[in-house]
């Protein structure tokens, strides 16, 4: 395959990955690794590097919009970034010692988990019981809604922090944003309103990915020929996805389609990991 054909295939694939990723909220880097490794037979190291770069682009791009709207809890994000960056650094260091077929299997498992997570119902929850640490760290905040400004409190700060270390390790190890785990930590443990947890998670993903990207960059995982079409494709896809989202509200069936596609790709990753092909 010539370089130009290879680049075009990745560009188109990444565009759809970014589009679906932004429509379903799973993030664009998600199907990039299976696409590169299973379809184009790219070595998983390069796939992880390229995915990580695309994660930084989409997270930073969309965070720019969310931050201005005042939904993102910047203090909470900064505080939890201690956990995610430390985790990401650990994950990137661990990646050297873990055989690639285990990484493929683990990635498959996390993909399936995230696909299931994206299907569950999202009910807004507002908790207003004071938590000692949340008060000390000034984490309680408010966010704008159609009905006016809503105040909320943050619960179980310690538990959420520990979960974020775990999310960071997976992000560093697998080259994904692990947004699903971050949202899980903030949603179910810290009990933050869904809109805030989604945007704050997105806000943290860029820094988390950067903390492991600095390691991968020096190890030669980030190949310009592969990363270039991936990052451009995913970003343009994510941009058109966010444009569509403004016009159409419900995307229930789309979530299902994406979840099925992701689950299929994930089982392929697991299968190839087990037979040692990756």
């Amino acid at each position, binding site marked *: 395959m010539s370089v130009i054909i290879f680049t075009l295939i990745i560009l188109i694939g990444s565009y759809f990955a970014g589009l679906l990723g932004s429509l379903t909220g799973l993030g664009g880097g998600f199907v990039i690794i299976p696409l590169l490794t299973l379809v184009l037979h790219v070595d998983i190291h390069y796939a992880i590097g390229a995915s990580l770069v695309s994660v930084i682009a989409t997270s930073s791009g969309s965070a*720019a919009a969310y931050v201005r709207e005042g939904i993102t809890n910047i203090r909470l994000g900064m505080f939890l970034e*201690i956990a995610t960056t430390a985790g990401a650094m650990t994950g990137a260091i661990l990646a050297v010692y873990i055989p690639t077929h285990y990484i493929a299997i683990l990635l498959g498992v996390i993909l399936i988990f995230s696909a299931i997570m994206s299907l569950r119902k999202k009910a807004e929850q507002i908790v207003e019981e004071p938590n000692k640490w949340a008060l000390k760290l000034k984490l309680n905040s408010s966010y704008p809604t159609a009905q006016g400004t809503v105040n909320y409190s943050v619960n179980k700060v310690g538990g959420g922090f520990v979960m974020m270390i775990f999310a960071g390790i997976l992000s560093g190890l697998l080259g994904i944003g692990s947004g699903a785990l971050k949202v899980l930590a903030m949603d179910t443990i810290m009990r933050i309103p869904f809109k805030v947890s989604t945007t704050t998670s997105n806000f943290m993903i860029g820094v988390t990915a950067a903390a492991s990207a600095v390691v991968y960059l020096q190890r030669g995982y980030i190949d310009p020929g592969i990363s270039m079409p991936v990052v451009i494709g995913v970003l343009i896809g994510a941009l058109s996805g966010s444009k569509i989202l403004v016009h159409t509200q419900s995307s229930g069936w789309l979530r299902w389609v994406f979840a099925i596609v992701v689950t299929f790709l994930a089982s392929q990753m697991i299968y190839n990991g087990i037979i040692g092909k990756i």
Partner: protein
Amino acid sequence: MAQKISFKDTDMQAVIGWVLRIGVIVSISIVFLGGIIFLYRHGHEIADHKKFVGIPDFIRTPGGIIDGVIGIRGQAIIQFGIILLIATPILRVIFSTIGFVLEKDRLYVCISLLVLLIIFVSTISGHAG
């Protein structure tokens, strides 16, 4: 002081949003430009990424990348753009730190500095590995 300078959370949101937006636009434009040059020169070669062999030697070091950018080499320009992209969220943390200093929020100045320290350590550890 005749006039009190007050820096609020909303100001910080505006600055952070601006940093992220500019960072992404600039770095992706550079990647795009490098991509065109790379495809123009190497488009008809055979793509082979089946085995992990790292990246080409001339873009392994910062000095090599700068030389490559000056010499208008596609892969060096792409890599330069990617480094700027990776730097974007880190730059965002630096701007948040400045914001917290202006807000006189000492606790969060420390928290932001700690995040920067972790990223710094990570950079060093990658160099050794």
